[in-house]
């Protein structure tokens, strides 16, 4: 158990911002290299998904207030894509950087920062679509929508903690990658994105304990309703505490051993 060295790793890794900025951007861009419209595929594929969902689910579920429902779906789906991406790629955080870990004596947190940066690029590109959609819907947005800013920053902090925890477990137990994928698929339907909590009050009593609901809610509620969802913030605060503390303890214990697992 070496908590001081683990903390030092996280601090020193942050200082290497030039390393993780350049590596993450190259990896992000190279996914689309040699394609005609390049990184705009991120936006396009998200936009296509949003458009199809709007045409199908809007008429199906948004009976009362179509415009409200459409905005609800766009913002919720945006956050869903982000959350899903953060969690599904987390077990590969260290595995995908195995070659670097075995050849450079860098702080391991460097690779976590790199992964979080890639989430940020995705966020920025897809958020453009959200803005376009909200403008198109002429959805009235309150000044209180700015509560979404601390929410997204907090969720990025969460992403770091999740990647730390799952990254270590995923490097040691390779089943985790597959397990996480298997869990996330049904979660898409168990999280209120396409349907609203008010439409399924009974089911919601159980699904209220789904952290993904609160992760989405702290971002969605300010924009959609001009509300600060206190309960969801508290819930997410507890989640963050559990994930970050367990991730940090694991990191303190296993940091020097991770390199032997590739």
């Amino acid at each position, binding site marked *: 158990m070496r908590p001081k060295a683990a903390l030092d790793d996280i601090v020193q890794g942050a200082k290497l911002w030039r390393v993780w900025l350049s590596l993450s951007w190259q990896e992000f861009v190279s996914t689309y290299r040699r394609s005609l419209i390049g990184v705009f595929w991120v936006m396009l594929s998200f936009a296509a998904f949003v458009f199809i969902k709007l045409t199908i689910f809007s008429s199906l579920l948004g009976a009362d207030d179509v415009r409200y429902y459409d905005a609800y779906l766009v913002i919720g789906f945006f956050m869903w894509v982000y959350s899903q991406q953060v969690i599904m790629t987390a077990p590969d955080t260290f595995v995908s950087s195995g070659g670097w870990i*075995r050849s450079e004596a860098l702080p391991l947190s460097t690779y976590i920062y790199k992964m979080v940066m890639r989430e940020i690029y995705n966020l920025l590109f897809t958020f453009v679509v959200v803005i376009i959609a909200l403008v198109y819907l002429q959805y009235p947005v309150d000044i209180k929508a700015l509560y979404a800013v601390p929410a997204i920053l907090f969720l990025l902090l969460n992403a770091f903690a999740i990647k730390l925890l799952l990254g270590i477990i995923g490097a040691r137990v390779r089943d985790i990658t597959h397990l996480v994928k298997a869990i996330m698929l049904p979660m898409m339907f168990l999280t209120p994105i396409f349907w609203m909590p008010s439409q399924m009050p009974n089911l919601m009593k159980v699904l209220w304990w789904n952290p993904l609901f609160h992760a989405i809610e702290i971002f969605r509620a300010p924009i959609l309703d001009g509300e600060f969802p206190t309960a969801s913030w508290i819930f997410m605060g507890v989640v963050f505490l559990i994930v970050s503390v367990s991730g940090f303890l694991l990191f303190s214990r296993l940091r020097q051993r991770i*390199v032997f697992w590739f």
Partner: protein
Amino acid sequence: MAQIDAFNLSLHYPLTGGADRNINADREPDSIVTVGRKKYILALRDVTFSIQRGQNIGLVGRNGSGKSTLLRVLGGIYTPTSGQVVSTGKISSLYGMNLGIQPDATGRENIVFRGIIKGWSREELKERIPEIIAFSELGDFIDLPLRTYSDGMRMRLLFAIATCFAPEILLLDEWIGAGDANFQKKAGQRMNDLVDEAGITVVASHNRNLIQSVCEQGIWLDKGVMRAYGPIADVYKEMDAHFAKTEA
């Protein structure tokens, strides 16, 4: 001023990911220990040495003798199970041609990544890039993705990057196999320059000709134990005598 001191270095390499199930500790009593339910390879056992500045060390020994492990301990990649390494001097290392690179990025971009990792400033990068390209003899290939390179080209580039900033300690693992004779000569020359400036190079290789042409000193590792350390000719003599005896 470069110097490397190793005190009683031991490294137990944990067997994980199912590898532990396929190996039998009773059959390999020499190299494997079981602690609790976990199995470890004894990759280094109680290794002690002191390398002074201006030395070119050849790390020799058979496959699995601990050469790569020792290099990684010296480079700070592996933390030893017990004992310690104290080294002074800026370290540059090359552990393999497929490690520490972005295969989809161009040669030029990879120079930048490795430069940034080494902490070069923007100006230093600008200054060094032409020099690295020239030394690696890559020409226009420098703007193609690394995955299109042959082993020799990749090795030339990585060697050029690793040595361009006059490291005080250079750690090389089996790097020479892929280079042609001309480049090997150039690389050997550069290593000698480094040592002339009171640096240290440690090269692990099975290529006896290479080792004998660039190294004056040698360390022989056998199953993680350091059997000899001294002038390279003596080290080889001892090693040959040992294997001649045990395999007769």
